[in-house]
């Protein structure tokens, strides 16, 4: 009895050929699983976005009563947890598991069943988290869930669901990370040394090490919190001798690498997009790859910059201020690499590239506001204000989410065999960018004017109302943009598939596969002699030489 057969389509069990739902639920095909991740991310994006709209509606005018304080606390907590753990992680990991095997010329991930397990346990984590609404209320202590607010006597039952949901999602992320590392280390096609990896795969590899190293700290903290809440242990219970500060250490030891986990795959997507849409190879591959490793390592040495206001003392603060300034350098290097890639290239401003160029500007703004926080006295003034909210949205949305959008428009023809409408895409882009900047740029000023975050309303302070009102208007623009995107996807999927499997004239191996790829990705693979094997195949008279 053979476990694998050449013709997978012919030898699929009859049940799988007839029953589409069963196929989706039991698939171990990395492409199906990638799509499942993206669909789950889409679902949670709609939910998380609705939570954002609810918040912005509440904050549109002073002394508003649209949401009660208790409801507001639950909404902002769920918005943060949802967007980070159930939108961005699944979207980025979904693209990772979809494209990593294709880009290295492999037919499958190293552990296909583990891949399926990872998706389903992540999804279960999300469902468990949302079950809290039906079980006495969602978690309401903020997405970083500080002690002692996270203790039994100060927060709702929902915090238990926060712990359990994130434990499950964390297990899913770590198993995916391990799967990706083993895949990249063992299943590369002949000729593809690590120095010839596509940058998306390189970022996925470094990112996976980050995930495997950072998530356990969160898991430990969540387990300790559950022990506190359910078995009355004393880890964070201050009157009994526990330490609220310990939670902060453990959480941010995870939390800081987590933000790099969210941005590295986006960096990878942009590295591919900049090359293809400038029709030029990346400027300074070694610097992009090397600075990524530097970011990975340094990211474990900056966590206390989230705790400058916790009274750790000047010595500790100075060290982490310095390390936080240092970590800005490798990211800055990459920005120059991408600009250098565009310089002298023949640039095509398709929607994918529009998001990439916008990313350069938005992420730089976010990076600048972030590095401002490394100056400790500025942090003391701005912490827990809307300046932080502005910063984090510029990097998460302008960085990670734009990466997902750019990747979506770039890879849609590969995943589905159809190209998203450029016209609707441009409407989506401009509506979203205008809405996004309207909402969050003004929040820099609100923060500097002293508006605190995570408070359900504000008094009639001069300037607050107009800025908040405009900020809320921006949120509605983003919602409209999202509707345009969904309509675009819906209309595109109704069209017949293209015949062109390489619509962008791209460079990497995934474009050699069919569009959409067959169940078995590659029957044969081009010879790999450089970093752009598909480019070499199409240009045999002037191939790359590395």
């Amino acid at each position: 009895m053979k476990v694998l057969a050449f013709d997978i389509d012919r030898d699929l069990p009859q049940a799988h050929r007839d029953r589409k739902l069963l196929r989706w639920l039991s698939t171990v095909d990395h492409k199906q699983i990638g799509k499942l991740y993206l669909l789950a991310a889409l679902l949670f994006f709609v939910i998380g976005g609705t939570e954002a709209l609810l918040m912005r509606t509440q904050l549109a005018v002073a002394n508003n009563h649209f949401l009660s304080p208790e409801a507001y606390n639950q909404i902002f907590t769920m918005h943060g947890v949802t967007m980070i753990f159930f939108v961005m992680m699944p979207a980025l990991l979904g693209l990772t598991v979809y494209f990593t095997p294709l880009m290295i010329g492999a037919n499958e991930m190293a552990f296909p069943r583990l891949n399926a397990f990872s998706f389903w346990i992540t999804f279960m984590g999300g469902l468990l988290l949302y079950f809290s609404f039906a079980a006495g209320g969602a978690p309401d202590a903020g997405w970083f869930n500080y002690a002692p607010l996270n203790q039994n006597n100060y927060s709702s039952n929902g915090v238990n669901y926060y712990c359990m949901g994130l434990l499950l999602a964390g297990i899913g992320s770590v198993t995916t990370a391990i799967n990706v590392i083993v895949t990249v280390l063992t299943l590369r096609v002949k000729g593809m040394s690590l120095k010839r990896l596509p940058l998306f795969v390189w970022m996925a590899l470094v990112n996976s090490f980050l995930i495997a190293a950072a998530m356990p700290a969160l898991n430990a903290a969540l387990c300790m919190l559950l022990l506190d809440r359910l078995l009355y242990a004393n880890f964070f219970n201050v009157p009994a001798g526990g330490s609220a500060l310990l939670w902060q250490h453990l959480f941010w030891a995870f939390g800081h690498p987590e933000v790099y986990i969210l941005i590295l795959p986006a960096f990878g997507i942009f590295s591919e997009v900049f090359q293809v849409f400038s029709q030029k190879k990346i400027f300074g591959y070694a610097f992009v790859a090397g600075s990524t490793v530097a970011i990975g390592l340094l990211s474990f040495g900056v966590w206390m910059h989230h705790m400058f206001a916790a009274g750790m003392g000047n010595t500790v603060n100075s060290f982490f201020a310095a390390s936080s300034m240092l970590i800005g350098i490798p990211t800055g290097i990459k920005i120059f690499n991408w600009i250098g890639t565009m310089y002298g290239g023949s640039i095509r401003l398709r929607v994918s590239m529009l998001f990439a160029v916008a990313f350069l500007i938005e992420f730089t703004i976010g990076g600048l506001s972030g590095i401002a926080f490394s100056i400790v006295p500025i942090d003391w003034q701005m912490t827990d204000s809307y300046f932080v909210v502005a910063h984090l949205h510029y990097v998460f949305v302008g960085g990670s989410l734009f990466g997902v959008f750019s990747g979506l428009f770039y890879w849609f023809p590969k995943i589905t065999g159809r190209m998203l409408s450029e016209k609707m895409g441009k409407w989506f882009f401009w509506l979203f960018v205008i809405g996004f900047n309207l909402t969050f740029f003004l929040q820099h000023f609100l923060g500097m004017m002293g508006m605190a975050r995570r408070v359900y309303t504000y008094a009639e302070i001069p300037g607050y109302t107009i800025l908040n009102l405009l900020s809320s208007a921006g949120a509605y623009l983003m919602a409209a943009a999202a509707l345009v995107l969904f309509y675009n996807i819906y209309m595109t999927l109704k069209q017949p598939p293209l015949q062109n499997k390489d619509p962008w004239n791209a460079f990497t191996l995934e474009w050699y596969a069919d569009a959409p790829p067959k169940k078995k990705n590659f029957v044969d693979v081009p010879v790999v002699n450089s970093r752009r094997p598909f480019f070499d195949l199409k240009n045999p008279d002037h191939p790359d030489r590395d």
Partner: protein
Amino acid sequence: MSLDKRTWLIGSVKRIVTSKIDRMQNKIMMRLTIGSEAIFFISLMIAYAYFWQSGHFGQAATSHLDIFKTGVFTFLLISSSFCFYRAERAHRNGKTTPMVRWLLATVLLGFVFLAGQAHEYYGLLKQHLSISSSEFGSSFYALTGFHALHVLIGLVLISILLALSVRGYLSNSGSSLLATVGIYWHFVDVVWLCVFTLIYVLPYCI
């Protein structure tokens, strides 16, 4: 993936033969897993160390814990690692009967360790040291409890190996199962050595 690069069941001889690439993948996978779990245990140990001063752990440990009894059980856990190593060697040489015997010894020693742990917990609970009674209680039970859970997981894995070997799937060398599970089992042992040193030995040194 082409046909010859997968673990498969060969005809009527029910042996598991792992290809070279699968063996490499399993090893890397297990090493990454224990690496991640190591950081989990390090986080718990950091929490333990964090409360050392304020919770008077040195005093609490010396007054509540029996280093000699637990030392004996530590020795038994180390012996179980040795037994597993012998089982792996027997498998590599294709000798099924000694392999089964050594695997059985590993499982038995593992269960004795867990029984010893349970007995210790029982004694501590009678002394009114529970997870909620003090900082020391919380940190002690969390660290040793999660370790015990990992031992249990390991015993489940080894029991599966026993079941497979009894049915004949592991006759002849060629499977990477023992090597892979071995990485995990030895990791569990090393974690216990670190935990034992931190909780039982250190109070006598500092």
